[in-house]
């Protein structure tokens, strides 16, 4: 069962992937954040470049921080971005 989810990117993740957001069909076997990052790296060089060091990628599901072991089931919007530098 594939699911349709909106991905949004910020800062240098956005720049390297070359877009701010996209809707994507995820295969059923992609069920965690970590698996999503593996899946995305297979989509092309720009993704491999943006996500080369997955340990520095921060992830939010529906506007809440999650860690890489978190399930993405039911997610409407998944955001990928570098560590935050506000304040």
């Amino acid at each position, binding site marked *: 069962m594939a699911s349709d989810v909106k991905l949004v990117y910020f800062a240098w993740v956005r720049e390297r992937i070359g877009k701010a957001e996209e809707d994507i069909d995820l295969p059923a076997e992609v069920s965690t954040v970590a698996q999503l990052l593996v899946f995305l790296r297979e989509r092309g060089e720009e993704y491999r470049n943006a996500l080369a060091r997955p340990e520095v990628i921060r992830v939010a599901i529906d506007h809440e*921080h999650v860690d890489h072991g978190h399930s993405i089931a039911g997610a409407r919007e998944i955001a990928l971005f570098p560590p*935050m530098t506000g*304040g």
Partner: protein
Amino acid sequence: MEPVPAPILRIQAADFDVAAEIDRLSQARADVGAIVTFTGICRAEEGRLAALELEHYPGMAEAEIGRIAGEAVRRWELSGLTVIHRIGLVKPGQNIVLVAAGSVHRQAAFEAASFVMDFLKSRAPFWKREHLNDGTTGDWVEARDADEDRIRGWAVTKD
């Protein structure tokens, strides 16, 4: 204690007026004895910097600041709390962020303002990029490990 006014939380391109925000907190209740403000200012970085560009994640930034402010209001007896974060281009010497906390006693105001700043730095979805005086766009500012460490410090205190 009188009721706690809802925190004032704003994300805006415009500058803010620290004195007006302090006045708002001091006038909100008659039992305010202490107001602590933190003002974050864009540094010149030895003259290299023309401006900082502040990007944010609309929707999540508001939600996350709301969660941080809510936690601060639960942890400390505050008479008021104001958080303002600017977005867009900010020049050296200009304001980036304001946190202002009011309380009956000074220690609550100091700790709450410090707590909110620590979590804003490491949890609120904002990113800074340098624009340089030579006309080029510089690097994204790197997160500091020390900021992440401070978050863990508060978590330990909490348990």
